[in-house]
């Protein structure tokens, strides 16, 4: 399991615009870099990020080899109803990690 830093509000009022900030530990090896022996390290990157809010997809991102290690993503969503925010990162070598947070809209 990769370490993750999330900044997601737990409570909001209807109509609030929430800033979601995510940081995940990942090497994002490009697949182009030779090591000290001249052997190119195989690609190992995150390929896709998906965020769903109460089952509805609110944010998707495709990653490319040009993205730095430990990718930081920030985006906004509008709080409308109480529900689960699910964050999922998928990548090479079967990388698949899901984090969930409950959002209470009062």
């Amino acid at each position, binding site marked *: 399991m990769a*370490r*993750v*830093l*999330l*900044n997601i509000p737990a409570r909001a009022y209807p109509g609030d615009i929430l800033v979601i*900030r995510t*940081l995940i*530990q990942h*090497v*994002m090896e490009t697949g182009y870099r030779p090591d000290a022996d001249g052997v190119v390290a195989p690609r190992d990157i995150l390929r896709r990020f998906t965020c769903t809010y109460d089952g509805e997809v609110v944010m998707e991102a495709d990653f490319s080899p040009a993205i*730095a*290690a*430990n990718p*930081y993503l920030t985006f906004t969503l509008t709080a409308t109803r109480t529900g689960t925010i699910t964050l999922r990162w998928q990548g090479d070598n079967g990388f698949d990690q899901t984090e969930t947070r409950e959002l209470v809209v009062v």
Partner: protein
Amino acid sequence: MRFLLALLPLCLPAAAAERRSGFDDMAPQTQAMQRDDSANPGMLWVLEGEALWARGCASCHGDAALSMRGVAARYPAWDAATGAPIDLAGRIAQHQGAPRLARESQGLLALTAFVAHQSRGLPINPPEDARLAPARARGAALYTQRRGQLDLSCAQCHDDHAGRRLAGSTIPQAHPTGYPLYRLEWQGLGSLQRRLRGCMTGVRAEPFAYGAAEYVEIELFLARRAAGMALETPAVRP
């Protein structure tokens, strides 16, 4: 009392008043990244270290927030077992009851970052131990000794030209306030020894091996230079 406090800055040597952390010379965006724990990638290693601590260290050392507070500010310190100075990573690496961790391994970096993080904000407080004095003096000599094909010493850049620019980068004043730190160029966490190796290969000198006594001596000298400055671990640097 207030009068005396007002006089205090006048009594400090001029150099002390002008001391800057590398943090002060960073772009505002990078400073913001370090300030915000949810954006600082170094906190990923602190989290990793916290998990390692809970697994191996907590049974003896208990709550790190209490037992490790201020510890990192006192290192490098004297190690009675080996009769030599030792830095924080070295102390953790040789620790009993835990699997031996290699220098610059992710586990050791994570644990060092976690332990040093407990001292964040505290002033660097090098121990007044007479046994450290010879090693510190050797560190000072290494700092001013020219080395490598470029024939440059640490002091020539970090004292004589600090604040000026080396290509696009500001030359910092060599105050190790935030190690182990997340360097954007490394895209990872690294130790002060890794930073010193970077400088040595930069002047085309052959770097010492990780864990060499020379590094600890330089670290001792640098800690004295930075005495009183606040620890920032895990810092972010460009």
